[in-house]
């Protein structure tokens, strides 16, 4: 458990001290939400429906935008090589990335969501099923994003390419995430993507470690 | 075509134009590569 803790601690420290990622993702979400009334007008009934959809758009966008930070920034400055040398088990490194990345990029959205929903006259009981789906779904999305990031480490023209690879893989999560009753399917999907992601990310990291 | 002529013909035209475009482009690419290969083989024979 010590290496897992160390790696998570390292990523959180980097996020907290260098570019203040917590604030970045939260403010990104707030900014997207602020745009909604400007686009769709101030009819609160309509806004309520749109708000539920915008949550999923902003979470997939924030996952896409921070995709490079999972492995690529470590790969670029060479610290990925050091991590691969220091820690024997690839699975530990990958699991640490899941947790750290989820805490940095998805947790701020989930924490801020109940407060933002007040702006759209949504009560907590309205938002609660969405919140549950968001917690499960964002975990699954992080699993997918991690293996996409690990597999495309050596690719040029990266962000568009990664978008084309990532978005079709995220579609099932969004479809089941929007429906408040389908959380069991969402759990199954997330577990499945966890299994695939462990193998695929380890495969990707092993290729670049060679 | 019972009022649907535009849709039917345009879809057939799109189908055949796309297919022949793909066909011609790939044949041209193949010929180009063949020429390149022959040149290289000559070159490697001379050097060896």
């Amino acid at each position, binding site marked *: 458990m010590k290496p897992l803790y160390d790696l998570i601690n390292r990523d959180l420290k980097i996020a907290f001290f260098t570019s203040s990622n917590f604030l970045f993702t939260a403010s990104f979400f707030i900014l997207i939400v602020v745009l909604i009334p400007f686009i769709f007008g101030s009819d609160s009934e309509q806004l309520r429906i749109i708000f539920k959809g915008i949550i999923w758009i902003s979470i997939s966008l924030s996952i896409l935008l921070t995709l490079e930070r999972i492995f690529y920034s470590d790969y670029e400055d060479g610290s990925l090589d050091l991590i691969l040398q220091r820690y024997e088990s690839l699975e530990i490194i990958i699991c640490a990335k899941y947790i750290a990345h989820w805490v940095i990029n998805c947790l701020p959205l989930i924490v801020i969501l109940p407060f933002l929903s007040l702006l759209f006259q949504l009560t907590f009981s309205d938002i609660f099923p969405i919140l549950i789906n968001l917690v499960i779904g964002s975990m699954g999305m992080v699993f997918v994003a991690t293996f996409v990031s690990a*597999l495309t480490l050596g690719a040029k023209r990266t962000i568009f390419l990664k978008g084309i690879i990532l978005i*079709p893989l995220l579609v099932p999560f969004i479809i089941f995430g929007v*429906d408040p009753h389908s959380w069991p399917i969402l759990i199954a999907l997330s577990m499945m993507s966890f299994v695939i992601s462990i193998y695929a990310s380890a495969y*990707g990291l092993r290729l670049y470690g060679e | 075509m019972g009022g649907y002529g535009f849709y039917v013909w345009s*879809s057939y035209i*799109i189908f055949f134009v796309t297919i022949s475009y793909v066909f011609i482009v790939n044949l041209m*690419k193949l010929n180009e590569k063949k020429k*390149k*290969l022959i040149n290289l*083989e000559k070159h490697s024979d001379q050097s060896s």
Partner: protein
Amino acid sequence: MYLKLKKSYFDVLDRFTPFLIIMTIVSFIIGSYFALYGSPPDYIQGDSMRIMYVHVPSAWWALMSYSVLAVSCTIWFITRNPFFNLIAKSIAPIGAVFTLIALVTGSIWGKPTWGVWWVWDARLTSMLLLFFLYLAYIFLWQAISNKDLASKISAALAMIGFINVPIIKFSVDWWNTLHQPASISKLSSPSIDESMLIPLFIMAFASLCFLITMFSVRLRIEFIESRISRLRQKIYD
């Protein structure tokens, strides 16, 4: 990429290509005659259902090409024989073209049937996502300059995409039943008359011939490319 394949293998492909081309052209001519004149119009949709004879075969072969791609990538994972990676690499663009044709003709068929060019119907949407899976595979090959690495990565991606295809199909069906009125699926007629099956099968056969022709041509391009890169190495060494 080193290939332990003899030159005679692709000489055989060379000899078969004219025969394949002739078969493709002849069967397309026969198929188009039956599709456009030799078959009666549908009694509900009228002549607009003649679009089916190009739309349905394209959709079939688009799905089949993706299965071939994924299966050959899986075999590559087991045997590590680069030949299977070349199969996958050469069939991907053809499958993408068929997917694109299926999307465009489906949209054209939608205009007289539904009154609109595009409907977020389960089949059209999952075809669109399939098109993006093809694009991702093709772009990944282009984006990674080290071809050996590109083959390994894209094979993994193709397998994951193949797992994703049924999930997408299932989820899009689910989404469709939630959000769409049932009347939209007018296209799914349960029984097709026999007189429509004949042109459909001829057109499907013709498209398959075209697919095999293009596949053999692209496979030869890949062979030659690998030979060229090997010769280059030899010369520069």
